[in-house]
């Protein structure tokens, strides 16, 4: 009988532990849906950082943009165009240097891959449904959806070039 009790206790504790383990895993926001993430070991630390502050240069997001090549020099002509598009299409919700309806784009190139940024601009509806980071951002910004402003790929690329100047 005693052994049975002991056995039961051990089983119960294991159960509790495994439960606890699962809960911790849930806190890792990007551990689901990502297949090739060897950096998983660090994730418990990152969980404390809000999505807008977190650095993830590996994720490319979902959408039409598969790869972007950035020139060695910043293309000033493209920047001028990008700044103009940003002013017309984005300033209703974004301020360059402070959190507004959505996050500020200053420093974004240090936190996100170029592909992710362009996919977020061009394909926001799918991004907030599928991309774990975009999903988290939607929650962090009170559920305010990133609007699809129907930018052309060219315009979105120009906006990206403009973002390179916001450091």
């Amino acid at each position: 009988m005693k052994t049975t009790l002991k056995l039961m206790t051990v089983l119960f504790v294991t159960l509790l532990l495994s439960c606890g383990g699962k809960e911790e895993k849930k806190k890792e926001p990007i551990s689901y849906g990502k297949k090739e993430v060897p950096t998983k070991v660090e994730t418990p630390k990152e969980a404390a950082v809000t999505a807008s502050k977190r650095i993830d240069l590996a994720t490319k997001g979902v959408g039409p943009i598969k790869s972007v090549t950035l020139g060695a020099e910043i293309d000033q002509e493209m920047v001028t165009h990008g700044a103009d598009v940003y002013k017309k299409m984005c300033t209703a919700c974004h301020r360059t240097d402070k959190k507004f309806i959505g996050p500020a784009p200053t420093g974004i190139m240090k936190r996100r891959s170029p592909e992710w940024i362009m996919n977020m601009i061009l394909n926001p509806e799918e991004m907030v449904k599928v991309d774990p980071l975009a999903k988290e951002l939607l929650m962090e910004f009170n559920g305010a959806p990133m609007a699809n402003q129907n930018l052309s790929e060219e315009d979105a690329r120009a906006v990206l070039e403009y973002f390179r100047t916001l450091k």
Partner: protein
Amino acid sequence: MKNLLKLTFALVFVFAAFTSCNNTKSSDSKSGALASNVAEKVYVAPGEHDSHYAFISGGYSGNLTVYGLPSGRMFKEIPVFSQFATSGYGYSEETKPMLNTSHGFIPWGDSHHPDISQTAGEIDGRFIFINENNTPRIAKIDLKTFETTEIIEVPNSAGNHSSSFVTENTEYVVAGTRFSVPIPQRDMPIKDYKGNFQGALSFISVAPETGNMDIKFQVLMPGFNYDLSHPGRGKSHGWFFFTTYNTEEASTLLEVNASQNDKDFIAAVNWKKIEEYVNNGGGTMMPADYAHNVYDEHTHTATSTMIKEVRVVNPIDVPGAVYFLPTPKSPHGCDVDPSGEYIVGNGKLSANLTVHSFTKMLAAIEGEKFDGEAYGIPILKFEDVLAGSVEQPGLGPLHTEFDGKGNAYTTFFISSEVVKWKLGTWEVIDRQPTYYSVGHLTIPGGNSGKPQGKYMFAMNKITKDRYLPTGPEMEHSAQLYDISGEKMELLLDFPTHGEPHYAAAMEAGLIKERSQKIYNLEDNKHPYAALSDADTKVVRKGNEVHIYMTTIRSHFSPDNIEGVKVGDKVYFHVTNLEQDFDVPHGFAVLGQNTSELLVMPGQTKSSVWEPTKVGVWPFYCTDFCSALHQEMQGYIRVSAADADTPIKWSLGEDIE
């Protein structure tokens, strides 16, 4: 024992599985052969599209409704001649001029006969025209945006009913008057009608590229009632045909007095001949007063211009331009078959349908075999122009449409039925009841050389027991028939809005491809647009306050406004910065005397608000736009008339 139980369970399970399979199969085959076959013909699965658009006139609603066929689902109500709170049409500053007339601003109209523009005798899906019967006007709706973009008032007309039908290249949209009146209008005894009143038939030119309308000329005809009309096509292109009644020229108790003559007329008008006469300087400019209202798609704003003269033509000045074809008993519908050879006149009080031959008409004109004249217009002999009659097909014939396969379909109001008959042999092929008292009917591509004859729908005047009762007033009912076979097959009843008269319909493809999804912000030339957040501002000009405001999910910018005073005239100019399909924002402010605005992506609309009370008043988005729609609100502070509160505006000042 346990094994036995298991075995039983297993057997029952297997049996159940088999029988359920059998059941499914048998019920499928059964329904395929019986009633559900009809259901399948009108079933459009969730998420799938109808094959045809139907544009059904709204009658006394003044509007035009858009339906899908074969499902009978209503997609949209397009405001045309009436104020429409749902979008702010006729309430917003931009659209108020659309309803301007020589009688001032008119908030209502009676819309009757929509007709789609054509190229080379085929409907092209660019524009749809519709007439206003009461205060005579013709409107044009752009099928790219499904918005009313032009309205022209028709002077010298009264009861604009034999309208608005287009010629085979949309050279003209034609508007004939139902009521004859003194031209020009003057103070005279009503009893002196006969010989003094006239009926104006207006030929409104349509510019090929822009579609802009202009009254090219009006033919001033004898004082009859011009009831309905249709263009010649193919061989008869260049002619237009109008049914007449009240050739007795009675001014009172028409139900008796206008039914005396055994035959009235179909007026055949050679508009090409008159056009040539006018192009050579013929006709006279007559003083007039009518409004021409045009909506500019770049400024999102309508302007109303008053025009002070119109060109009129006396038909006897243009020999060979107008003839009368005797037609029995107050004909109503005037329909021309796809080949242009047959002109069907449906005598409301006649037992037979009368069909005239265009070829015979030309021969009779050539032979100058006239049966007298009326006010100088030659009357052809009935027997000389008659192609044939459909003998006693039903009671109270009204309108005829064609399937392009040699068949005609005529509605009978009194006997509540649609009768299918054959052109040339005049034999009745089929008849189907309608529920009840059918008026017009429509076959997609109806008024054209190429009907798209798979469906036909009848529009009924009386509904009674066809739907769940809704008090004394029932919406009118339409009925869809499959006309692909020898016999017509009733498929569906569906409710319509207002009182549908005629409807125009066509295959969905052309319109669907061209349908606009958003207004590009880049093309927005509205003088009060705020095209980005940097453009938002509040400007005082005397007692006018102009608020340049933007919307995007889910805020207004600015959303806190101060410095407005009682007695000010406050203009909210709202630009929707969204550039995504189907994301409009609404705008309403407490105490607004107009309607809300519904602003499409990239569009600017303006609403006037004249605050009468001091206070802090909220405004909000009326269209559920996002998860944070309930947060989409703002405040405007109204100070006393003599206060010195400075103008001030902001958005999110307290954020971080």
